[in-house]
C-alpha cells in the first residue's frame, strides 16, 4: 500500500494511475482517507496527471467539511494500490514509556503485578507482530489456450466466461486472441495462481464447463514464480 513519496513525480504518477478508475481514495464517499492523502500532496498536480488533478480539485471543494468526513485517518502507507511496498513505515509502533517502575513505589505487591502485566502485554504485542508477517506463498504463472468451436464463436463472451471464474488464489492477467487458421482465433490468457489453492485440473474443469463457447483448453506454459 502507499503511493511512495507523494511529493515526488513518481508518487504523483502512482496516485494518478490509482485514481483513474476511482472517485475517492477509499470507498464510495469522501472520507478521512482522502483528507490524509490530500494533505500529503503539496500542491495541485500538473495538468498532465488529469485524474490526480480532478480528485484534488474535488477534495479541495470539501475543505470546510474536512474534519467531519467519515473514517479514521491512518498512516499514509495504508492507502493506495495493494501491491506497492509500504515505504512510509516510520517507527509506527510507538515506543512504550520506560517509566513503568514507580520510583516512589508505594505497594510492592502492586508493583510486581503491574510489571508482570506489562511484560505479558509486551510479549503479546511481539507475538502478534511476528504472526503478521506473511509466509512465503508459492505461486505460478500459467498461460492458457482456450479454443472455440468455430470462427463464428463470440470471443468477447468467451473471454467474459473465462474471467468470471473466481477462486481464492487466482488472479487473471492479460489476454490476447491468436489466430490458428481458417479464421478461428484462440484466446490466450495469463493467470497467476497460488499452488496450494488452485490447480490446472480445476481450471480446466471450470473452463470446459462453458461448452457453449469452449471446445477445449490447454496449458500453453506453466512457470513457477
Amino acid at each position, binding site marked *: 500500500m502507499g503511493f511512495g513519496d507523494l511529493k515526488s513525480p513518481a508518487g504523483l504518477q502512482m496516485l494518478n494511475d490509482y485514481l*483513474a*478508475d*476511482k*472517485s475517492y481514495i477509499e470507498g*464510495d464517499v469522501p472520507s478521512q482517507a482522502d483528507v490524509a492523502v490530500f494533505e500529503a500532496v503539496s500542491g495541485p498536480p500538473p495538468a498532465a496527471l*488529469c*485524474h490526480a*488533478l*480532478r*480528485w484534488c*480539485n*474535488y477534495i479541495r*471543494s470539501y475543505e470546510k467539511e474536512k474534519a467531519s468526513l467519515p473514517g479514521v485517518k491512518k498512516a499514509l502507507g495504508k492507502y493506495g494500490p495493494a501491491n506497492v511496498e509500504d515505504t512510509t513505515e516510520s517507527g509506527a509502533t510507538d515506543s512504550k514509556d520506560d517509566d513503568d517502575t514507580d520510583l516512589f513505589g508505594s505497594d510492592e505487591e502492586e508493583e510486581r503485578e503491574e510489571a508482570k502485566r506489562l511484560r505479558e502485554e509486551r510479549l503479546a504485542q511481539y507475538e502478534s507482530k511476528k504472526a503478521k508477517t506473511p509466509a512465503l506463498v508459492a505461486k505460478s504463472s500459467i498461460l492458457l489456450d482456450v479454443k472455440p468451436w468455430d470462427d463464428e464463436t463470440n470471443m*468477447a463472451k468467451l*473471454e*467474459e466466461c473465462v*474471467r468470471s471464474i473466481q477462486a481464492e488464489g487466482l*488472479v*487473471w*492477467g*492479460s*489476454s490476447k486472441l491468436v489466430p490458428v487458421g481458417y479464421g478461428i482465433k484462440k484466446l490466450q490468457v495469463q493467470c497467476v495462481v497460488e499452488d496450494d489453492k488452485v490447480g490446472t485440473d480445476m481450471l480446466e474443469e471450470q473452463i470446459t464447463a462453458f461448452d457453449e463457447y469452449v471446445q477445449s483448453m490447454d496449458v500453453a506454459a506453466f512457470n513457477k514464480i
Partner: protein
Amino acid sequence: MAAAAELTLLEKSLGLSKGNKYSAQGERQIPVLQTNSGPSLTGLTTIAAHLVKQANKDYLLGSTAEEKAVVQQWLEYRVTRVDGHCSKDDIRAVLKDLNSYLEDKVYLTGYNFTLADILLYYGLHRFIVDLTVQEKEKYLNVSRWFCHIQHCPGIRQHLSSVVFIKNRLYTNSQ
C-alpha cells in the same frame, strides 16, 4: 427501460411515496403525467424535473445558473442522443464523448450530484451492462463515473450492479 418504469424508479430514488400514474403518447411512447391541479406534463425530462421539485430536492437541478444550464444540457443529451438510438456506432460515439467530458469531473456538472447523473445512469445502464472488459477500460472515465453513481444510496434499486474490475489489465488501451 420504458419511460413510465423509469419515472417510477426515479420517484423511489427521490423518496417520493406516492406512485403517479403515467400514460404514454404517440409511437415513441413519450410519458405523460396528469397533475391534480394544472395541465398535463409531457416528456421525460419535464416530468423528472417536476418530480424533483415535488420532492423538495431542487439542488438536484443545479445551484448556480451555469450548473442549471449544464444539467439541462445533459437531460437534453439523454433524450436526443441516448434514447431511441440503438446502433452500436451511436452508442460508441456517446461513450467516447462522455469519456472525454468526464476526464476532469466527478459528476456531470463537476463536483455536485444532480438529476443529470441520475437520468444518464438510467439511460445508459442497458448499454453499460453489455460492455466487455476491454471496452470498460477503454471508456475508463465513464466506468469510473458509472461505478460511482451506482453506489450512491437509493439510485441503483433493482437494476443490476455492473462489475468493474479493480485491477486494470490493458494498460495500453488509453
